[in-house]
């Protein structure tokens, strides 16, 4: 009873309403995209990129002051620099791309930390690192909505060639699928969605939001379509559930989102009828 009143009190506040809506949208978009991240096996690359966003944002704040748009531009710039920079380093030296990326992103991340500390906006630093879904303004919500809509619609439009490409790039190319175009498109969409999840869960936890939902569904289905719609639903509903859970418990929303999604994954891992730990059809 008390819980119900606290929740309804909470929902009466516009800040909480916005946060709830943001959880649903960002959770869904990230969950949807996570299907493609899982199929591309690029979870670690996403982790790298999400860290690389921080210095870009810091630089943008340094140059243009803190606005949504400057942060967005800085994040895109940083992701491109690390992504293309590592490619360039690996092509022009004997290092492979993973090594190059490892150096670039940690250096960039550390540089970003230094800039943000010097800027004397410690409060914001924590928000970028761990998210602040509760502190979202209307404009933030619109940006999150725009990004989510573009990402999900683009992925729906590209799903056929994209799935062939993710299945086997050589087969895709031999069938006339524009493989290079698709890899860039997927990269671009991923960065966009990462930026929106930065707001919600911060750059350190954003990988979880972008991997866990579809990884959970991956243990339950053999259907690609179920994977991305299911990922979206788990991402969206999981985030909303985490929001309601975090309020009475006084937990951080972002951390709760990742813990809830991680918990759902563990449940699927153990109890999945097809690929779970106790499944009789388990393959070794």
């Amino acid at each position, binding site marked *: 009873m008390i819980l119900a009143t606290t929740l309804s009190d909470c929902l009466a506040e516009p800040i909480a309403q916005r946060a709830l809506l943001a959880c649903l949208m960002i959770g869904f978009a990230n969950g949807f995209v996570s299907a493609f991240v899982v*199929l591309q096996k690029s979870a670690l690359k996403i982790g790298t990129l999400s860290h690389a966003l921080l210095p870009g944002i810091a630089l943008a704040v340094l140059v243009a002051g803190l606005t949504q748009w400057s942060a967005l531009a800085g994040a895109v710039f940083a992701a491109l620099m690390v992504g293309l920079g590592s490619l360039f380093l690996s092509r022009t030296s004997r290092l492979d791309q993973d090594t190059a990326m490892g150096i670039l992103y940690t250096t960039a991340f550390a540089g970003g930390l230094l800039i943000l500390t010097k800027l004397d906006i410690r409060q914001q630093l924590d928000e970028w690192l761990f998210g602040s879904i509760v502190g979202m303004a209307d404009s933030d919500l619109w940006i999150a909505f725009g990004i989510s809509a573009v990402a999900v619609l683009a992925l729906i*439009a*590209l799903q*056929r*060639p994209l*799935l*062939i490409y*993710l*299945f*086997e790039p*050589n*087969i895709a*190319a*031999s*069938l*006339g*699928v524009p493989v290079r175009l698709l890899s860039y498109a997927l990269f671009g969409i991923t960065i966009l969605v990462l930026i929106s999840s930065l707001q919600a869960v911060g750059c350190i936890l954003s990988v979880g939001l972008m991997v866990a939902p579809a990884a959970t569904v*991956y243990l339950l*289905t*053999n*259907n*690609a379509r*179920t*994977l991305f719609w299911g990922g979206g639903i788990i991402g969206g509903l999981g985030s909303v559930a985490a929001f309601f859970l975090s309020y009475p418990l006084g937990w951080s929303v972002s951390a709760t989102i990742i813990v809830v999604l991680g918990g759902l994954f563990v449940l699927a891992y153990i109890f999945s009828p097809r690929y779970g730990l106790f499944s009789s059809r388990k*393959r070794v």
Partner: protein
Amino acid sequence: MVSSSHVHDHGTCGHTHAEGHVCWGGGGDASTHHHKLEVSKLRVTYHEVLALDGIDFSTECGRSIALIGPNGAGKSTLLKSLAGLIRADSGNILWRGKPLTRSSHEIAYLPQRGDIDWNFPITVRGLVEMGRYPNLGWWRSLSRHDNDIVERALTAMHLHDLQDRQISALSGGQQQRTFIARALAQEAHVLLLDEPFTGLDKPAQESLAKLFHELTHEGRLLIASHHDLQTAPTIFDELLLIKRHQIAFGTMKEAFSKENIARAYEDVSAQSASSHAHHPTEH
């Protein structure tokens, strides 16, 4: 080098079989003559290393070619070049008299089974339907005609009962047949297969060999890399022996000689100090 003159004996590109031959839906001109694949002076560098040089052969629909050579001889590179996946530095690949520039639905590429993510969430039917992509593009949904073609491909490969299975729940032979069914759904004339017999048990190898004969008899051209020198002459009717350069090309009778095989494998055996020159095992 063995000459590449052939006797046109069997398996023309489609005028013996009205139903289900290679030129299904291919239209009129296709059924009247042999489709030729001509490769001349092909030279390919891959990752800045010379992978192939002086590849020169000509063949046509209704034949099957074993592509044989030691590890690193460039077999996969040649298959990928023929599939249009790797650009050649120089030389020509002519298919039906025209340069092979972009991907063509008439040419299907089947990668090694080891290169495939068998856990990918796709069913047998879903994979076969991929073959319709060149006709459908990004958005058009499968028409009745497309579905008929997919059905026929599934039936021809005896996969009808397995069509809803996820692809990891198949035997090696069934997996290989699924990929061939995809090529059939694509209405491919030429099938380029990378080590299709690798990892199959004896019965599966035998049934795949039988399938190869059927496919060539229907008028398709099969080019497959192969590492088992003992089985090659019974499965294929032509041999393309390479070690970066072309060592021999011709019918099995002409080209499959001790001398040629020794020339392809001699350095390998010298280097590895093994005496397996005639029956190298390659994985």
